[in-house]
């Protein structure tokens, strides 16, 4: 914890992007430190967010609205309003002191930052098995949480809900995130090269099927988190999705929900890819 001119701050680093979160409210600062405990760093922040707390009011279940106002991004929901300037890397958030608003602001901010860097946040569980990351995506109920619950002890959970993917010179990497779903458990703060992305479907047996590249892009675009009705952003994400599909094997994984599905994952590398 650091105190700067009556401000309390901490640096939360997700996906190798350190963000300084600053507030003058001790309880809110404690909430930040507790919620992102595994992701606190002392590194120099790349981005900064100042928080002003407001009283809770009606409308916190409103849809998120993200729009561009000049050079700035405006992020709004019933329980928060934030401005972020990508030129300076600084932003200001007015929000109620609840952790869901906090998570939402961070997720949107990361999705905007990643889009400019060829990465994305994906509705997917992910884990590291034998040094390689595997992503499991699909609609609600497809089996993301089930896959994480069935994971053997040697699998490191990166997330059961929101996967963090960004490119590196050696290929795509998946990072752990504190954004949890039904498991209500933060992922590990680590990363690994992405070995495959599976779109999940439950079925009577375990099998892996090819997906045509365009179908893979269609499914990927359906599950990438993005919030803005912004042509430039969509253009970038579509280019990113195409690049990802051409680099990383993307498959449909039909699975019967028992632990044998992870044998299928371990054996996956022996299979040919369509990259």
């Amino acid at each position: 914890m650091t105190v700067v001119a009556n401000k309390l701050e901490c640096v939360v680093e997700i996906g190798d992007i350190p963000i300084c979160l600053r507030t003058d409210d001790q309880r809110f600062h404690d909430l930040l430190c507790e919620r992102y405990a595994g992701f606190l760093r002392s590194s120099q922040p790349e981005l900064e967010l100042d928080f002003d707390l407001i009283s809770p009011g009606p409308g916190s279940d409103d849809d998120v609205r993200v729009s561009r106002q000049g050079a700035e991004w405006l992020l709004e929901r019933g329980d928060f309003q934030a401005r972020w300037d990508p030129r300076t890397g600084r932003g200001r958030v007015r929000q109620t002191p609840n952790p869901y608003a906090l998570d939402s602001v961070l997720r949107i901010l990361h999705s905007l930052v990643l889009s400019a860097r060829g990465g994305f946040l994906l509705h997917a569980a992910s884990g590291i098995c034998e040094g390689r990351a595997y992503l499991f995506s699909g609609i609600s109920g497809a089996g993301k949480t089930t896959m994480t619950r069935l994971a053997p002890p040697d699998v490191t959970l990166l997330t059961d809900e929101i996967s963090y993917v960004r490119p590196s010179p050696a290929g795509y990497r998946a990072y752990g995130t504190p954004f949890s779903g039904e498991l209500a458990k933060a992922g590990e703060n680590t990363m690994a090269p992405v070995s495959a992305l599976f779109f999940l479907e439950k079925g009577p047996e375990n099998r892996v099927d090819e997906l045509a590249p365009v179908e893979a892009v269609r499914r990927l675009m359906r599950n990438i988190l993005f919030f803005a009705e912004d042509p430039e952003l969509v253009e970038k994400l579509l280019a990113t999705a195409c690049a990802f599909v051409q680099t990383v094997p993307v498959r449909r994984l039909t699975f019967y929900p028992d632990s044998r599905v992870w044998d299928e994952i371990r054996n996956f590398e022996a299979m040919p890819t369509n990259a």
Partner: protein
Amino acid sequence: MPETYIARSSAIAARMLAGEMMVMNSMDSTFFTLNEVATAIWQAADGSTPLREIVRERICEQFDIDPEQAQSDAEQFVSELSQHGILLVSDHPLHDRQAPETR
């Protein structure tokens, strides 16, 4: 018969992958895959070339399709994409807009 002019909306993103054109509307996230003929029409939608000329010069010659059938198919395709806000349609040239580049 009045001419029809078509132009690509600036609210879309488009990308060619494995020989197929993908088009996505940024306003509602609808996603389309275009076949070869539709892709040729899409790429020719510059706002100033009449649809009839696009069909004659790009479609009939390239794909060896009956002109009447090609015109009918093209009009249906244009109608569908315009309903989704992906193509702009006018009976006058759409000179003042610039179609986005398709990669």
